């Protein structure tokens, strides 16, 4: 789960990490009022989950309340990588002497918690890693204990001045505490700045959380911005399904995440365009199939649906009952291709006999049939 910069900064502030003061605004007038109250230079910053908002024009530094109003009017409603800006963070301007980078993340390769620190901040860290790898400092821990010695060594180098070792080290310690206490997958400060009056502050903040741990952090769940999420993904989650929308027109309903990905890949490989990833999950409650149909069809441009089930825990007869019930409860006016294999497949197929569903014997057969049913042409070159 992702949160906004202003929410990340509120978490930082609670943890004792210095951040600039700011006010959230949802209208240009609110932004002007916040700027007037502050009285000096302010930054108007778009609050969206998508990265690269600076390049997209989502951040403006202004001197007067009128300019703040104009900047906010321009930024609010702006589309940044598919996210509409609904809120801006009006933040006290900082007088920047130097910019550094600091992050803590889960490193899957080494099964550790990795710190990345760099004296080159304020720019894309992947670019720094590629062009000037010597400017990147990395150290890690395989326990949930702060790696004091390595952190101290890195802290002294961040602003290339030992005078700031203690303040940087303190921020590292607190950032690690946020990471562990809130079950984060990433906490990032880019840039971490040294101001002209010699203070070290977090000028930006990015925090991502481990979805599996949200059950023990109701306070974090409350930070979820529904406006940033696909309503279908949220609905699917509440029904025990896993759904991600794609660009195509062939709906997919599959059991198991791996098989669901394979189904999308196969549809594409055979010349079709998958409309979604959808995993109905392990247990095969017929209700889930009905919800899955509703979510898939809500996308609008669906030309055909492929149901691909490999029964293990999932019982094919339960899926078949769900399909029949779906046809009773909702309008399904596109062709539906069904492939059932595994546990109780025969019973499932028997239940579907006489319905207008298109049965398919194998995975590949099902993919070919759904592409034809959607009005597309099957491509076979991949077999070479």
């Amino acid at each position, binding site marked *: 789960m992702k949160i906004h910069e202003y929410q990340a900064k509120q978490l930082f502030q609670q943890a004792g990490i210095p951040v600039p003061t700011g006010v959230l605004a949802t209208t240009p007038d609110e932004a002007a009022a916040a700027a007037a109250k502050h009285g000096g230079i302010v930054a108007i910053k778009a609050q969206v989950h998508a990265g690269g908002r600076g390049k997209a024009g989502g951040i403006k530094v202004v001197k007067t309340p009128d300019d703040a109003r104009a900047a906010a009017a321009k930024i609010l409603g702006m589309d940044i990588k598919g996210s509409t800006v609904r809120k801006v963070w009006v933040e006290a301007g900082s007088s920047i002497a130097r910019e550094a980078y600091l992050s803590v993340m*889960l490193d*899957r*390769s080494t*099964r*550790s*918690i990795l710190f990345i620190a760099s004296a080159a901040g304020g720019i894309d860290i*992947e670019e720094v890693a590629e062009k000037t790898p010597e400017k990147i400092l990395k150290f890690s821990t*395989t*326990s*949930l204990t702060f790696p004091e010695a390595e952190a101290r060594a890195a802290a002294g180098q961040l602003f290339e001045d030992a005078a700031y070792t203690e303040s940087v080290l303190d921020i590292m310690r607190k950032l690690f505490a946020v990471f*562990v206490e809130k*079950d984060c*997958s990433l906490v990032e400060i880019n840039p971490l700045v040294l101001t002209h009056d010699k203070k070290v502050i977090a000028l930006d903040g990015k925090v991502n959380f*481990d*979805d*599996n*741990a949200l*059950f*023990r952090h109701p306070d974090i769940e409350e930070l979820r911005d529904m406006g940033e999420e696909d309503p279908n993904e949220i609905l699917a989650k509440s029904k025990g399904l*896993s759904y*991600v929308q*794609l660009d195509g027109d062939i709906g997919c309903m*599959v*059991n*198991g*995440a*791996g*098989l*669901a*990905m*394979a189904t*999308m*890949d*196969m*549809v*594409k*490989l055979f010349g079709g365009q*998958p409309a979604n*990833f959808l*995993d109905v999950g*392990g247990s095969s409650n017929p209700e889930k199939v009905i919800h899955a149909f509703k979510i898939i069809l809500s996308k609008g441009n669906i030309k055909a649906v492929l149901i691909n089930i*490999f*029964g*293990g*825990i*999932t019982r094919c007869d339960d899926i078949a009952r769900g399909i029949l019930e779906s046809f009773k409860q909702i309008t399904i006016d596109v062709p539906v291709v069904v492939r059932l*294999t*595994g*546990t109780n497949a025969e019973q499932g197929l028997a239940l579907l006999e006489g319905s207008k569903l298109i049965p398919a014997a194998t*995975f*590949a057969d099902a993919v070919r049939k759904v592409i034809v049913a959607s009005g597309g042409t099957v491509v076979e070159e*991949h*077999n070479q």
Partner: protein
Amino acid sequence: MSILLDQNTRVLVQGITGRDGSFHAKQMIDYGTKVVGGVTPGKGGQSIHGVPVFNDMKEAVAATKADASVIYVPAKFAPAAIMDAAHAGIKLIIAITEGIPVLDMLEVYHEVRRLGITLIGPNCPGLISPGKAKIGIMPGSIHLPGRVGVISRSGTLTYEIVYALTNLGLGQSTCVGIGGDPIVGTGPMDLLPLFEKDPDTDGIVLIGEIGGDEEERTAEFIRQHITKPVFAFIVGHTAPEGKRMGHAGAIVSGGSGTAGSKIKAFSHAGVPVANTIDQLAAITQMGLKK
């Protein structure tokens, strides 16, 4: 032969009185697995499917001489259940549970490694040595005893692939579902040497998916250490960046972890990568005939 598991492996089921634990304990017993007991705190003294239930792992291991355990307890309690098994002296632990927080697994991972224990999963279907025994949730009927080793990050996709292999008459020595989480106890690089050493495995099918760099590192590992033929299949070509595709570990982030990058790494290591499941079964058959 087979790896990790055979008909003599003595298995305990943690969470045996729960819905999933009870159902799969029965399935495992029916397949031929030597299930010697189960554990559910507070329910010791009962018996289920003809095996005794114990209150804790230490008691269960002492009474049954078990050497493996399988975990069906909810995510909240699963890390403690893994550690209970580890500290009771179990050497092979299979965690089926999905949804364990990754920081919990970080601690568990390093502790079981330190103790020299093999942990399979979490968020996995388990493992099966066809014709001998299975530990987990996979349908036994699709498997065929034989000489192909299977390693996979997925559940149902593995069944699909095993089914395709079986339909071509290609039986399996052992199939291991390593799990779909960012941190799992055992990876392909732990299992490949076991298959390499197993005299009854001729080749290995490796099923990967987007996210992380395990496949890339595995490709290099194969190039250096594995002489038996390996055949790969990768899913998630069509997954958009930054979206978790069901499995907690299946996510392309910052342009890394893509299907393309994994295929490139395998090709570079001389490992053929199939486009489709049928093709995977076909190239495995052809590759093993040579």
